[in-house]
C-alpha cells in the first residue's frame, strides 16, 4: 500500500519546511501559520493512518498486513535491507496512538507556547519527532526501526533542551541522550548478534516477518555457553531499558521534564518511552524463546514500577511526580511483557498514552496559568478557577488509579491478572504499586486543585536535597518572558482545553476496547492483536479457569486503589493525618530516601561519573607523563640523529657534491680553451687527428 510512506514522509516534509523557512513564515505570515502547518501535517498523518487501519480491518484477520517498500537500501554481502514500512494490527495500534495523541499535542502546543519566539523551531522538531517515531513503529526491519529509534532520541534531546539558554536544560538533554546511547549501544549489539548468528545459519535477515520464522533456527545455538536467543534478547532489552526508562537506565526521564510540557506529554509519556515496549512486542517470537530474558523483564518491570512509585509519593514538582509515575507505569507494561502477555502490555501502553498525556497536558495547563510555577506547594485551590483542566485531570487521575470503568482499570487489571497467573509475588508488587499510584496521584489532585491557593508561599527547603532545587531551576528556566505578573489564575484557552477534553474522553473510554470476558466484554483489543501474537502462544482460554479468582483479584485491586485515595484524602483534605507523621516515620529515613530518589543520581555521580572522571584523570596523567615522555624521548632522539645526519650531510655529502661541481668546473675551464671558434684551428686539429689515425693504422 503506497499510502503508508506518506504517514512517515508528511511529518518529515513538515519538519523540513518549518526548520528551514519556518522563521520567515512566522515573521511574514504569522504564528498561526506555523502551528497550522505543523498540526495539519500531524492530522493528515492521522487521517492516512486511519484509512490504513480501516483497510486493515476489512481484511481477513490472518492476512492483515500491508507493506510499502520504498527503496532498496543496503545490499551488502548477505545483508539485504530495504526502506520498507509495514502496517499490521500491532503497528496500526501504535501508529494511531502516535499520530492521534500526537496531533492533539500539536494543537495544544500552539496554546502552550503562545509567547515563545521560536514557535517554528518547536513545531519543526515536533514534526521531526513524529517522523522518527513513525519510522520506528512502521519500519519492517530492525535497521529501519533503529533509524527511528535513534531519531526519536535525537528529537528528544533537541526538545528537552528547547530552552537551551538555560544551562540546566541542556544538561538534562545531554543526560537523556547519553543514557539513551548506553541503551542504543546494547540494542545495536543485540541486532548484530542476531544477524551474525542467523547469517551463520544461512538465513541472514533483519526483517521482522522473516525473523519470526527464522527465530526457530536459533534453538540450540549458543555463544560462550549462553543461548544466543537469550543473549540477543537481553541486549535488546537493555536497549529497551534505556529508551523506556527502566532500572538501571531510568534516571534521565525525571530530568527530561526540563523540556516544555507538550514535549513531556508527547515524547516522555505517550510515545517515545513506549518504544521499548513496542520493540519487545514486535520481536515477541524471539523473546518468547528466551524464558530467562522474560523473567528478567518481568522482575525489572516490577522493581521499576514500585521503585518509581515510592519516589513519586514525596516529590513536590508537579511534573516530576508525573515523570516517576510514567516510569512506574512503563514498569507495569514490562511486567506484562515479561509474563508473555504482550497484548496486555500494548493495551496498557495505549490507555496510558491517553491518560498520561492528558495528565501532562493538564499539568501544563496549570503551569501555564501559574506563570511557570511547578512546585505543588505553591498551588492549590485551582478547582474553581480552572474547571475544565480540573475535570479532565481528575478523570485521568481516576483512570491511572485504576478505578472502574475507566481505561486504567481494564489495562492494569489485565496485567495484574496475567502477573498473578505467572507469579503471585509479581502480582503483590503490582498491587502495592497500584495503591501507591492511587495515593500519589490523588495527593497531586488534592494539592493542586483543592484547599487554599498558596501562590507565592515561602517554602521551607531546609531538608530538601537538590530535588527541590531542580524543580526551581526548571521553573525559573523559562524566565517568564510574558510580562504579565498578575496572580490572577484563569482557565486556559481553547487550543489547550480542547485536547484536554478529547484526551480525557479517551481516558474514559479507551479501556472499553479491552473489557475482559470475565466482565461480559469480548476484549476487542486482544482479539485485534491476536493474529500478531498468535505465535507467542497467548491462550486466552485460560481466563475461564478461575473466574471467581479473577473477580476477587479485581475487587482487591479496586479496594487497594480506594485505600490509596482515602489515605490521600485523609492526609491532604481532611488533614486528620499529618504528612509529617509519615515523613518522620522510622527516623525519617524512608522519607529522605524517597525524597532524594534513593540517591541513585548521587550513586551514578559517585560511581560512573566520578569513576569516569577519575579514569580520565588517570589517563590524563598517564598521557602527560608516560605517553608524552615516550613522544618527547622519541623527539629528542630524532633531533640527535638529525643533528648527526645534518653534520654528515654538510661535511661529507655537500663536500662530495661541491667537489664534483668544482672538478667539472675546472675541467670545463680547461677544455673551453680548445674551442677557439677559429675554423682554421679546427682544421689543424682535424688534420693532426686524421694523420695520427692513419699513422696508427699504418703501424
Amino acid at each position: 500500500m503506497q499510502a503508508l510512506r506518506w504517514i512517515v514522509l508528511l511529518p518529515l516534509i513538515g519538519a523540513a519546511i518549518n526548520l528551514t523557512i519556518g522563521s520567515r513564515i512566522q515573521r511574514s505570515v504569522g504564528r498561526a501559520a506555523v502551528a497550522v502547518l505543523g498540526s495539519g501535517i500531524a492530522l493528515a498523518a492521522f487521517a492516512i493512518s486511519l484509512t490504513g487501519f480501516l483497510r486493515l480491518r476489512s481484511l481477513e484477520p490472518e492476512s492483515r498486513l500491508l507493506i510499502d517498500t520504498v527503496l532498496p537500501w543496503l545490499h551488502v554481502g548477505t545483508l539485504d535491507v530495504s526502506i520498507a514500512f509495514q502496517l499490521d494490527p500491532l503497528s496500526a495500534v501504535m501508529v494511531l496512538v502516535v499520530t492521534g495523541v500526537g496531533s492533539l499535542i500539536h494543537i495544544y502546543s500552539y496554546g502552550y507556547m503562545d509567547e515563545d519566539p521560536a514557535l517554528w523551531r518547536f513545531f519543526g522538531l515536533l514534526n521531526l519527532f513524529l517522523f522518527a517515531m513513525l519510522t520506528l513503529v512502521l519500519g519492517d526491519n530492525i535497521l529501519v526501526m533503529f533509524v527511528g529509534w535513534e531519531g526519536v532520541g535525537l528529537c528528544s534531546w533537541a526538545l528537552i533542551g528547547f530552552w537551551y539558554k538555560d544551562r540546566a536544560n541542556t544538561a538534562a538533554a545531554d543526560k537523556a541522550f547519553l543514557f539513551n546511547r548506553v541503551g542504543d549501544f546494547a540494542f545495536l549489539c543485540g541486532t548484530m548478534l542476531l544477524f551474525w548468528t542467523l547469517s551463520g545459519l544461512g538465513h541472514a535477515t533483519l526483517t521482522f516477518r522473516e525473523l519470526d520464522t527464522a527465530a526457530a533456527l536459533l534453538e540450540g545455538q549458543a555463544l560462550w555457553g549462553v543461548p544466543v536467543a537469550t543473549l540477543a534478547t537481553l541486549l535488546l532489552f537493555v536497549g529497551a531499558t534505556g529508551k523506556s526508562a527502566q532500572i538501571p537506565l531510568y534516571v534521565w526521564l525525571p530530568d527530561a521534564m526540563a523540556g516544555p510540557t507538550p514535549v513531556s506529554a508527547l515524547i516522555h509519556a505517550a510515545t517515545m518511552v513506549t518504544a521499548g515496549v513496542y520493540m519487545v512486542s514486535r520481536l515477541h517470537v524471539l523473546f518468547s524463546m528466551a524464558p530467562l530474558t522474560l523473567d528478567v523483564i518481568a522482575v525489572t518491570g516490577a522493581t521499576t514500577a514500585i521503585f518509581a512509585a515510592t519516589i513519586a509519593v514525596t516529590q513536590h514538582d508537579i511534573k516530576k511526580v508525573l515523570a516517576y509515575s510514567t516510569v512506574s507505569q512503563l514498569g507495569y507494561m514490562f511486567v506484562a511483557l515479561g509474563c508473555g502477555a504482550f497484548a496486555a502490555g500494548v493495551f496498557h501502553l495505549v490507555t496510558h498514552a491517553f491518560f498520561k498525556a492528558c495528565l501532562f497536558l493538564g499539568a501544563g495547563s496549570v503551569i501555564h496559568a501559574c506563570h511557570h510555577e511547578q512546585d505543588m506547594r505553591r498551588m492549590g485551590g485551582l478547582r474553581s478557577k480552572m474547571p475544565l483542566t480540573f475535570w479532565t485531570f481528575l478523570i485521568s487521575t481516576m483512570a491511572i488509579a485504576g478505578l472502574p470503568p475507566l481505561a486504567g482499570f481494564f489495562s492494569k487489571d489485565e496485567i495484574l491478572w496475567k502477573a498473578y497467573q505467572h507469579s503471585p509475588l509479581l502480582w503483590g508488587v503490582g498491587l502495592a504499586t497500584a495503591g501507591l499510584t492511587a495515593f500519589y496521584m490523588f495527593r497531586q489532585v488534592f494539592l493542586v486543585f483543592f484547599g487554599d491557593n498558596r501562590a507565592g508561599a515561602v517554602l521551607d527547603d531546609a531538608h530538601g536535597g537538590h530535588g527541590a532545587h531542580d524543580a526551581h531551576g526548571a521553573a525559573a528556566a523559562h524566565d517568564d518572558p510574558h510580562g504579565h505578573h498578575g496572580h490572577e489564575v484563569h482557565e486556559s484557552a481553547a487550543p489547550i482545553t480542547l485536547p484536554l477534553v478529547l484526551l480525557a474522553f479517551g481516558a474514559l473510554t479507551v479501556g472499553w476496547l479491552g473489557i475482559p470476558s470475565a466482565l461480559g466484554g469480548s476484549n476487542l483489543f486482544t482479539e485485534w492483536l491476536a493474529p500478531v501474537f498468535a505465535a507467542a502462544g497467548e491462550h486466552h482460554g485460560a481466563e475461564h479457569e478461575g473466574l471467581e479468582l479473577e473477580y476477587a483479584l479485581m475487587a482487591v485491586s479496586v479496594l487497594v486503589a480506594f485505600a490509596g485515595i482515602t489515605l490521600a484524602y485523609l492526609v491532604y483534605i481532611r488533614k486528620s493525618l499529618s504528612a509529617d507523621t509519615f515523613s518522620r516515620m522510622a527516623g525519617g529515613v524512608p522519607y529522605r530516601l524517597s525524597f532524594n530518589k534513593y540517591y541513585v543520581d548521587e550513586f551514578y555521580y559517585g560511581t560512573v561519573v566520578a569513576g569516569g572522571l577519575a579514569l580520565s584523570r588517570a589517563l590524563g596523567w598517564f598521557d602527560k607523563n608516560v605517553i608524552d615522555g615516550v613522544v618527547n624521548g622519541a623527539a629528542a632522539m630524532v633531533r640527535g640523529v638529525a643533528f648527526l645526519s645534518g653534520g654528515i650531510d654538510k661535511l661529507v655529502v655537500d663536500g662530495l657534491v661541491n667537489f664534483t661541481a668544482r672538478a667539472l668546473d675546472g675541467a670545463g675551464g680547461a677544455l673551453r680553451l680548445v674551442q677557439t671558434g677559429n675554423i682554421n684551428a679546427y682544421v689543424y686539429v682535424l688534420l693532426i687527428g686524421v694523420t695520427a689515425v692513419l699513422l696508427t693504422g699504418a703501424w
Partner: protein
Amino acid sequence: MLGMSMTTVGLSHYLMVSLVMLCLGLFCVLTRRNAIGVLMGIELILNSAGINFVAVSRYGSAGFDGQVVAVFIVVLAAAESAIGLAVVLGIYRRMRAIDTSRLTTLQG
C-alpha cells in the same frame, strides 16, 4: 725522372697529381682567412679525391664504380659550394665580414 716521363703514364702519376692537389687544398684551407678561399681549398680536396677514384677505377678491376663515385663527388661539390657560398653570404650580411679570424663567436 724526365726520361721516365716519356714512358707510359701510370696509376702512380695520377696519384701523385692527386696528392699534390690534396696538399694544395689543405694548405689553402689552413692558411686562408677569407672564407671563400677556404671553400676553394675544400673544392681542391674534393677533386683530388675524385681523381683518385677515377684513376683507381681505370687501373683497377672494379669496373665503373669509381667513376660513378667521381660523378657523385662533382655533384656533391657543386651542392657543397652552393650551400657554402650561401652560408658565407649570410655570415657577411650579419657580420659584415668573411674573415675567419674574426668569425669566432662560437668560441668556448
